[in-house]
């Protein structure tokens, strides 16, 4: 177990290193951000001044070393625009994204698994078809379009929820719903096929022979074992949610990391972009570790090794 943990941590470190290097390279290839920062009408001498201040005139190796050592200390430089350290700016936004992500997950996972299991209960029935089309709809829809439609119809016309902003239930439902649709689609399909695969296994026959009803067989026995392949693909869904978060947070004005990333990208605020990537990577690593724990919990064969 310890070796397992150490391996994971080492892997995480390597992944972080790669990410940071990619980000650094991208950052240096990007055109001159200074003009965008200080305005199109600024004099060239001022541009050079600012470049000096931001350390953009140093040799690349010096910049890389400064960048990497900074990252080690959890410092990702100061924003081109605000001239303040970027890490606190990103970390400040983290709770909003985690909040949205958790609500999305709480919405998506049970619903997806319920849908998947219902579909698996009677493959090729009309319920299965309906669920299948609904699920495929989730992976086929343009997120920002869905978001705008939900705002205009559900929030403005029907007035059920708030159009935008950050807060409790009335604020979080629409963005979470938008964000959840894609994972619901994918996980429910995954769950369906995983459960169907489980249903072929001998222990299911035995469970039926024990006198369990088909529902009990599917929802307790097949589902618990199907959860293992489901969990392994859930790691990818974390990326899906973060992906969607950039779009959804922008549309709904949700003050999370996704919105910050888009703002930083459009302002060419490289240090801030770098910091968001760093934090996003960290988030993904953490979530995957949590999923590993869930995985070992669900899979006794690993737990007792």
């Amino acid at each position, binding site marked *: 177990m310890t070796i397992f943990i150490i391996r994971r941590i080492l892997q995480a470190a390597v992944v972080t290193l790669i990410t940071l290097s990619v980000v650094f390279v991208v950052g240096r290839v990007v055109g001159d951000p200074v003009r965008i920062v200080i305005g199109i009408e600024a004099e060239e001498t001022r541009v050079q001044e600012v470049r000096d201040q931001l350390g953009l005139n140093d040799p690349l190796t010096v910049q890389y070393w400064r960048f990497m050592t900074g990252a080690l200390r959890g410092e990702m430089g100061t924003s081109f625009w605000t001239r303040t350290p970027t890490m606190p700016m990103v970390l400040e936004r983290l709770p909003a994204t985690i909040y949205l992500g958790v609500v999305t997950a709480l919405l998506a996972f049970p619903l997806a698994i319920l849908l998947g299991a219902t579909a698996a209960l009677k493959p090729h029935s009309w319920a299965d078809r309906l669920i299948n089309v609904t699920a495929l709809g989730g992976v086929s829809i343009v997120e920002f379009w869905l978001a705008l439609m939900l705002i205009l119809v559900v929030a403005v016309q029907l007035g059920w929820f708030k159009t935008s902003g950050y807060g409790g239930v009335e604020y979080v439902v629409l963005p979470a719903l938008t964000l959840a649709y894609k994972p619901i689609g994918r996980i429910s399909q995954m769950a369906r096929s995983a459960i169907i695969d489980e249903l072929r296994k001998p222990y299911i026959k035995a469970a039926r022979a024990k006198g369990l009803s088909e529902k009990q067989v599917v929802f307790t026995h097949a589902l618990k074992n199907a959860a293992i392949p489901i969990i392994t693909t859930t790691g990818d869904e974390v990326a899906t949610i973060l992906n969607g978060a*950039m779009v959804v947070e922008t549309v709904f004005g949700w003050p999370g990391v996704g919105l910050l990333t888009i703002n930083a990208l459009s302002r060419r605020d490289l240090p801030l972009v770098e910091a968001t990537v760093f934090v996003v990577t960290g988030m993904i690593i953490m979530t995957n570790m949590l999923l590993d724990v869930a995985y070992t919990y669900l899979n006794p064969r690993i737990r007792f090794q």
Partner: protein
Amino acid sequence: MNNTGSQDFGESVEGRPSKISWLRYLRGLFSDTTTAFAIIFLMLIFISTVAAEVVAPYDPIKTNLRMRNMPPLTPAVEDGSFPHVLGTDPLGRDILSRLIYGARVSLLVGLSSALVSGTLGTILGLLAGYYRGIVDDLIMRLVDFQMGFPFLLLALLVLLALGPGFWSVIFVLAIVRWMVYARQARGMTLAYRETPFIDAARVLGCSDARIIFRHLLPNMASPLLILGTLEVAGLILGEAALSFLGFGLQPPSASWGLMISGGRQYLSSAWWLATIPGFAIFFTALSLNMLASSLRSITDPLHRERWLMKGSD
């Protein structure tokens, strides 16, 4: 049927996939109504894309500011011309025609980036699975990383460096999605590597290249094609998201994503501007997804039985 099946009824031998004819695949696909619809829809889209010049009733870039933002089913200005079935856009351009030409861009982006990423991913996956060792380790670490990383963020980062544009978008979408093919190709290579027919080939003295191209690749083609189908849908959506965020294709290119993105400022008065291309993407992606999932059921020996049997009960 043979006598090796351990079950009470026949199954094919484990390992080498049993072949059923393409005709049977097709019949199987069409026996499912939704899949049949999906295929017909995709064929329609494809035909109109290829023959856009013939099919489109109007020039997609011909503006007519006096006919702007007309709702669907508006009759044409000139008598006898084709009505604007899907309305017109803020420059008075016919939306149906733009949709048809836009399909060309969207599908081209989807298909070509899927092709590039598919080729790249398959080759890397094959290498990883076939040679194992350090190559495998390196490639798979990268795959793991990219799998878990939001591809949109990666795409935006690279686009930031490349600048927006048609080829940048294709390039970016290709390099952010190669890993799904790599993962699948590697998995299958590992599985086939251990099967007797590859061993036999090796014993017969086949070169690595020959084993890979003549024996491994053909066997992996159909799952990879199915994956590619799925990916095309995802990539069209990805292009739309990039357009929305302002980093994707730029006008005067007319992709579906750009059409939705551009139409969103008119949602309150001319809903069709964003809604129609929105539905176009939705139904295309849905059809591709549906086709992929049916194809998977039909080519996977485990699912095939259930699928083909459906018609009989």
